[in-house]
């Protein structure tokens, strides 16, 4: 069980992370039945507080909360008082006054979720749904779940799995959370990017660093492609989209060099033709749709554990 908040993968032990994954698995089995809904969080209010647009993450959390019978409020910064300059503190206090039990926060500022949890602004459980260029812990959990589902179904963890994460490591909260979680679960991680897209200080991470995708592509069990944002080009992180795609994109020739059982992942949304070709995204090796599906189960597990729903057996009945 986890208690309090989920702000960073650092909050989790190996055991608590595995616990979430197994809770998610049980919840997934239940919700595959004809009645997808559980009464577990009836009477609880979950607020999706999104200061950045992210339709897919918001919908995933919303679906997860609704399947557990929680009331869901979507608070989007766009068009709300936040765009008129209301502070995070005032927004948090407003949600507190309205009786939120959990706040799922997406914010462009690294550490915003941690601030919500550390200050006295709000008492609710805080779930980090992506803070700036820091972390996105539920994405890492759903990625670990998906890797386990495809490659390590019967193992205790992800020991021995070789994961390649390719792309904009510098700005990626997905990469940070995945490095922490996958290594915690026994996987070995190699990061591939042009040197401009690694943070200074990455040498202290428990990973291998490479600038060359072609040298690594055939050695991995999992290749996770990160979304590349085109505005990085104007900041001279790389010369052109074509050059990036050519050197760091997952195209059909690289796809062909993957080992037989390897899987292709992407946190979405994809730039087809840029970091991932259409044929790679749609290939049998691609588990991208599974990631989306598993996201709901994993987020259900997180909400379930944090909000301390009814005992699990009870929920099943």
């Amino acid at each position, binding site marked *: 069980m986890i208690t309090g908040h989920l702000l960073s993968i650092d909050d989790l032990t190996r055991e608590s992370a595995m616990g979430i994954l197994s809770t998610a698995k049980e919840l997934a089995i239940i919700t595959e039945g004809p009645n997808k809904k559980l009464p577990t969080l009836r009477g609880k209010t979950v607020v999706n507080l999104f200061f950045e647009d992210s339709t897919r993450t918001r919908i995933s959390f919303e679906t997860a909360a609704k399947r557990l019978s929680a009331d869901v409020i979507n608070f989007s910064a766009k068009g709300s008082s936040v765009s008129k300059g209301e*502070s*995070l*503190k005032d927004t948090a206090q407003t949600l507190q006054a309205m009786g939120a039990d959990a706040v799922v926060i997406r*914010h*462009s*500022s*690294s*550490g*915003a979720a*941690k*601030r919500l949890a*550390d*200050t006295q602004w709000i008492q609710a459980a805080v779930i980090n749904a992506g*803070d*700036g*260029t*820091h*972390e996105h812990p539920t994405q890492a959990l759903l990625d670990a779940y998906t890797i386990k589902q495809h490659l390590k179904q019967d193992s205790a963890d992800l020991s021995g799995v070789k994961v390649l994460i390719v792309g904009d490591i510098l700005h990626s*909260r997905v990469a*940070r959370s995945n490095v922490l979680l996958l290594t915690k679960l026994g996987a070995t991680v190699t990061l591939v990017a042009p040197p401009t897209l690694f*943070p*200074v*200080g*990455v040498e*202290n*991470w428990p990973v291998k660093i490479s600038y060359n995708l072609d040298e690594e592509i055939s050695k991995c069990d999992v290749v996770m492609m990160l979304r590349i944002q085109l505005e990085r080009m104007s900041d001279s992180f790389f010369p052109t989209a074509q050059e990036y795609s050519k050197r760091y994109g997952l195209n059909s020739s690289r796809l062909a060099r993957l080992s037989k059982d390897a899987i292709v992942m992407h946190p979405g949304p994809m730039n087809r033709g840029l970091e991932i070709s259409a044929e790679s995204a749609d290939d049998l090796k691609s588990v991208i749709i599974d990631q989306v599906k598993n996201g709901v189960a994993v987020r259900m597990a997180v909400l379930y554990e944090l909000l301390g729903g009814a005992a699990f057996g009870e929920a099943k009945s």
Partner: protein
Amino acid sequence: MIISNAKLIDGRLVNIKIQSGVIHKIEEVQKSQKISDYDAKGKLVIPGLVDLHTHLREPGREDSETVLTGSMAAVAGGFTAISAMANTNPVADTAGVVEQVFRLGKAAGLVDVNPIGAVTKGLHGEQLAELGAMADSIARVRIFSDDGKCVSDPLIMRRALEYVKTFNGIIAQHAQEPRLTVNAQMNEGSVSARIGLPGWPAIAEEAIIARDILLAEHVKSRLHICHLTTAGGVELVRWAKKRGIQITAEVTPHHLLLTDDLVENYDPIYKVNPPLRTEKDVMALREGLAEGVIDIVATDHAPHPAEDKDCEWQAAAFGMVGLETALSVLVKTMIETKMISWNDLIDRMSIAPARIAGYSTQGQLIAEKNHANFTIIDTDRSWIVNRDKLQSQSKNTPFNGYELPAVVTDVFHNGVQVLKDGAVVSRGNLAND
């Protein structure tokens, strides 16, 4: 006025007689003690501290600090002279604004308030401010700085260095290469990589220091480096001094004690520009200060209202208040570690800054005929910093709850007691000697 039982740094116990703002007589204490006006009870007396880097926020942001509240904070910290940075609103880039600040300082009457003039109009870095007019004004400005912003254009920097030679001025550079620090939030290194905040690399500071050293050498003018924070910067200044280039440098108390791992909880109380660096940098700064490569300590006292720190990291303002903790932090980091003596501390916090700025009545030893600007410290006591008890109008100290050594108990400014037993003497009660 006679102050009895004051201990000099050489250990002698003396009575100090002040007359007309000047130390008239110093006599060793005899056994049969005469009655005095104020008994220092054996506490240490040192020259009044001099700060060359203070943000007072007036005019423009009187909600964070005024010249009066800043003066009160200065007195509480043992300072007898401060230097008001130019980044007010309006910017101190004309004789009118610096004279206004100067007059407000006189009206507050607690410490010398010496305005610093902007180098460029509006701090925009494009066109020189009225340097000569500010120098000739009643404020007699000699230090010019765009602090908060770097004079990044090399040609403007060159011209400024040249121009101020007429009146023996000095350019105090906030060394920050702007293109290397776009949206920068904290020191670039392992911590920023892990917690995902945009990095402010050490080289962005060092690149400007290196360039300006060469410019100062070329035009033979005086350069002062504000708030040095990196080991590499210390190396560069050491090199420049060996070459005989006219360069001086300052370090803040917070950069002598705090490191970037404090940022991990994203508490904006640790958000400051230049940012907190690594342990290695802190040690290099301490060594640089001990060696004299770094000439002075300056507070970079930067008051901000609560709402500018009670928010998420990126939305928060850069800066920390520092006047009231500076001396204690120096005792903790430099004296208790035996890196410097009290003699050195007095040099770095009073004598050297007064000399650099040309504050002729400040930075004088406790000796007959010298101006009576001095501070009495209880070195046997420590105190626990309580931000709510600060004199500064803003409470953004990173040291809240810290136990720090040495308590400033009394301050005499031009012979008038402005701090008595730890309490600021309010203006109406200021007595003449």
